[in-house]
C-alpha cells in the first residue's frame, strides 16, 4: 500500500466512523423522541396520566428533537455519499455533531429543567410571555441551543458548498443549471448526490442565517423586554427558517435513494435534463414556499399568500416526480433482491409521494383556514417525515449495517414500521378531518377512538424502529471496512 493509499484509507475509516457516530446519535435520539410522541398519544387516549403542563413541554421537546435529528440524519446521508464526489472536511462534519450535542443538552435542559413549553417554533413573543410556566433563562437556553445547532449546520453546509465550488466551479454548475437549460450536455452534469447537496446547501445556508437573526432578536427581547419588533415579521422569519430546514431534510435523505437503489439494481441512476430542471425548480420553490404557514394570518399581504398557496402545490412535485419515476424505472425488471434496506428506501419514496396529498390539501387557503389547527397537519407532516424522510434514513442505517448483521428480525422491523406508521398517520388524518384540534393535551371523549388507534400505531412504529436501530448498533461491533 502506498502512502497516498494509506492516507486515503485512513481518512475513509475516520469518515465512516464519523457517519456511524451521527447515526448512533440519530438512532438513540429518534427512539427517545418517538417515546415522547407515544407518551403524548397515550395521554390524549387517556390510557396514561400526564400533567397538561408537562404535555406541552414534551410536545416542544418532541418537535425540536425530531426536527434536529431529521437534519442530522439527512446530513449524515448527504455527507456520506457526497464525499465520493467532492472534497469535504471530516473535522467540520464532526464539529457539527459536537455543536448539535451541546445544543441538544441546552434544549433538553430548557424543557425538562426550565419548563420551556413554547413549541419548537418559539413563536415571538411567546417565549417572553410564559404566564409563569417557564423562566426567561429557560426560554433563553432553548433558543441558545437552537443557535448553537444552527452554527454547526451552517459550517457544514458552507463546507459542502466550498467542496462543490472547488470541483464544479460554482453552485449553479453543482445544481446542474447548465444541463437543465440545455447549455451543456447531460452527460457532463453533476451526479444526483451533488445536485441534491447543492440544493440543500443553498436552501439551508439562507434558512439558517434568517433563523439566526430572529433567534438573536428574540433573545434580546427576553432580557430587555422594552426591545420589541414586529410580530408578523418575526413569524415570517421563523417559518422561513423552520420550513426550509425541515423541508430540506427530505432532499438530503433522498440521496440515499439515488445511491443505495443502484447498488441493488446494478443500474446507475439516470440523470437527464428533466432531473436537473426538477432540482433547479424545487430549489427556487423551497426558498419561497414558506408563506403557506401563514395562510391564516389575515394581516399578510394577499399576493404573498396566493403565491404561497400556488408554490406549495408545486414545490415538492418536480423532484418527487423525477425521483419516483426514476425509482420505478431503476427498479422495474432489474431482478432486485429485496431486503430491509432496499425496502425502507422504497417505502421512503412512496411515503413522500403519498404525503403530497394531505400537504396539497392543507396548502389550499379555504381548506387551510378550517384544517390548519386540526390534527390534519400533524398527519400531513408525519406522513412526509415518518414514512418518507425517516424511512430513507433508517434504510441508510440498515444499509450501512450491512448484510453481515443478523437480518432475520430486520424485515419484521420494516413491516412493523410500515404498518404502525400507516395506522399512526391515518389516525391523525382521520381525526383532523373530524376537526380534532392539534396541540391539545386533554381530549374530549368523542376523540378518544382516534387517539387510541394512533397510540396503537405509534407503539408498532416504536417497536419497528427499535428493532432496526438495535440491529444497527449491534453491527457497530464489526470493524470499519477500509475498502471503498
Amino acid at each position, binding site marked *: 500500500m502506498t502512502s497516498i493509499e494509506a492516507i486515503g484509507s485512513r481518512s475513509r475509516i475516520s469518515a465512516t466512523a464519523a457517519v456511524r457516530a451521527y447515526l448512533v446519535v440519530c438512532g438513540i435520539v429518534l427512539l427517545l423522541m418517538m417515546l415522547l410522541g407515544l407518551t403524548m398519544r397515550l395521554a390524549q387516549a387517556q390510557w396514561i396520566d400526564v400533567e397538561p403542563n408537562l404535555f406541552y413541554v414534551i410536545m416542544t421537546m418532541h418537535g425540536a428533537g425530531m426536527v434536529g435529528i431529521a437534519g442530522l440524519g439527512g446530513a449524515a446521508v448527504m455527507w456520506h455519499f457526497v464525499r465520493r464526489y467532492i472534497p469535504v472536511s471530516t473535522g467540520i462534519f464532526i464539529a457539527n455533531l459536537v455543536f448539535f450535542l451541546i445544543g441538544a443538552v441546552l434544549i433538553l435542559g430548557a424543557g425538562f429543567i426550565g419548563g420551556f413549553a413554547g413549541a419548537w417554533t418559539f413563536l415571538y413573543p411567546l417565549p417572553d410571555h410564559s404566564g409563569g410556566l417557564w423562566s426567561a433563562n429557560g426560554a433563553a437556553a432553548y433558543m441558545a441551543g437552537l443557535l448553537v445547532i444552527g452554527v454547526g449546520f451552517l459550517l457544514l453546509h458552507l*463546507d459542502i458548498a466550498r*467542496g462543490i465550488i472547488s470541483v464544479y466551479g460554482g*453552485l449553479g454548475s453543482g445544481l446542474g*443549471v447548465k444541463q437543465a437549460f440545455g447549455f451543456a450536455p447531460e452527460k457532463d452534469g453533476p451526479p444526483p448526490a451533488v445536485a441534491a447537496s447543492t440544493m440543500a446547501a443553498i436552501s439551508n445556508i439562507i434558512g439558517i442565517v434568517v433563523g439566526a*437573526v430572529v433567534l438573536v432578536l428574540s433573545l434580546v427581547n427576553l432580557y430587555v423586554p422594552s426591545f420589541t419588533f414586529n410580530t408578523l415579521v418575526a413569524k415570517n422569519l421563523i417559518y422561513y427558517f423552520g420550513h426550509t430546514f425541515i423541508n430540506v431534510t427530505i432532499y438530503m435523505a433522498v440521496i440515499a435513494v439515488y445511491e443505495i437503489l443502484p447498488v441493488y439494481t446494478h443500474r446507475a441512476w439516470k440523470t437527464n435534463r428533466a432531473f436537473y430542471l426538477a432540482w433547479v425548480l424545487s430549489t427556487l420553490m423551497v426558498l419561497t414556499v414558506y408563506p403557506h404557514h401563514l395562510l391564516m394570518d389575515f394581516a399578510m399581504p394577499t399576493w404573498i399568500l396566493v403565491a404561497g398557496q400556488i408554490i406549495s402545490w408545486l414545490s415538492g412535485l418536480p423532484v418527487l416526480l423525477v425521483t419516483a419515476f426514476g425509482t420505478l424505472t431503476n427498479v422495474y425488471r432489474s431482478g432486485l433482491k429485496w431486503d430491509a434496506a432496499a425496502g425502507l428506501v422504497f417505502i421512503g419514496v412512496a411515503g413522500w409521494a403519498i404525503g403530497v396529498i394531505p400537504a396539497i390539501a392543507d396548502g389550499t387557503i379555504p381548506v387551510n383556514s378550517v384544517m390548519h389547527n386540526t390534527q390534519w397537519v400533524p398527519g400531513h407532516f408525519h406522513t412526509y417525515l415518518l414514512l418518507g424522510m425517516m424511512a430513507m434514513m433508517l434504510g441508510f442505517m440498515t444499509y450501512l449495517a450491512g448484510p453481515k448483521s443478523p437480518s432475520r428480525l430486520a424485515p419484521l422491523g420494516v413491516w412493523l414500521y410500515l404498518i404502525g406508521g400507516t395506522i399512526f398517520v391515518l389516525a391523525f388524518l382521520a381525526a383532523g378531518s373530524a376537526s380534532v384540534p392539534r396541540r391539545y393535551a386533554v381530549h374530549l371523549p368523542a376523540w378518544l377512538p382516534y387517539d387510541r388507534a394512533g397510540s396503537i400505531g405509534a407503539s408498532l412504529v416504536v417497536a419497528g424502529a427499535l428493532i432496526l436501530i438495535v440491529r444497527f448498533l449491534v453491527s457497530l461491533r464489526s470493524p470499519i471496512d477500509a475498502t471503498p
Partner: protein
Amino acid sequence: MTRGLVLVVWGILWLVRTPLESDMALHMTVQLPLLIGIGYMLATFLRPHEPRWFARADWFGIPGLLLVVFATSFWMLPRMLDLALSDPWIDLIKFASLPLLAGLPLGLSWSRMPGLGRAFLWANFIPKLAAIGGLYLAAPTRLCAYYRLDQQTTAGAALIAVAVALGLSWSAVLFIGSPPFWSKGGENAVERMRGAASGGP
C-alpha cells in the same frame, strides 16, 4: 503616492464630517464604511511592517476579526452616533479608532481566516445588517437624539439596501463561480473532481 492619497482622504473626511454626519444614512452607510476602508488600505501598506508577535498571536485571524466586530458594533450604537455628533473629541476618537481598530485588523486578519471562516462571517454579517436596518425602519420612536424619525427610516432602508446588494453579489459569485458558469470548454467536471478529490483531505 497611494499612501498619501489614503491620508488625504482621511483628512477630507474629517473636513466634510458635518455634512456627512448631518444625515443618519450618510453617516452609517458612507462615512463609517469609508473610515473602515481607510484602515483596510493602510493594512496593505503596513503588512510588511506588521509586528511578528501579532502575526503569530493572531491565530487564524480570530483575535483581529473579533476586534473588528467589537469596534464596528461600538460605533454603530445609537448612543455613540449621538456622542460623535455632540462632542468633536469623541468624533476624533471615532476617526482614529475605526481605521486603526476596525479597518487595519480587518485588512491584516482577513487573509489569515480560512475560507470557511470567511464564508461563515459573511453569511452572518449580511442578514444581521439587514436586521438592524429592519429595526431602524420599523422603530416607532427615535433612537438617536440628533436624527429625525424620517432620517432613521431612510437609514434603515439604506442599510437593508446595502445588505441586499452584498447578499446578491455574494450569491452571484458563489452561484456563477470560476470558471464562469457561462464559459464554454475547459471545465470538464470529472477531471476537476479527480484533481480536487486527490488533493483534498
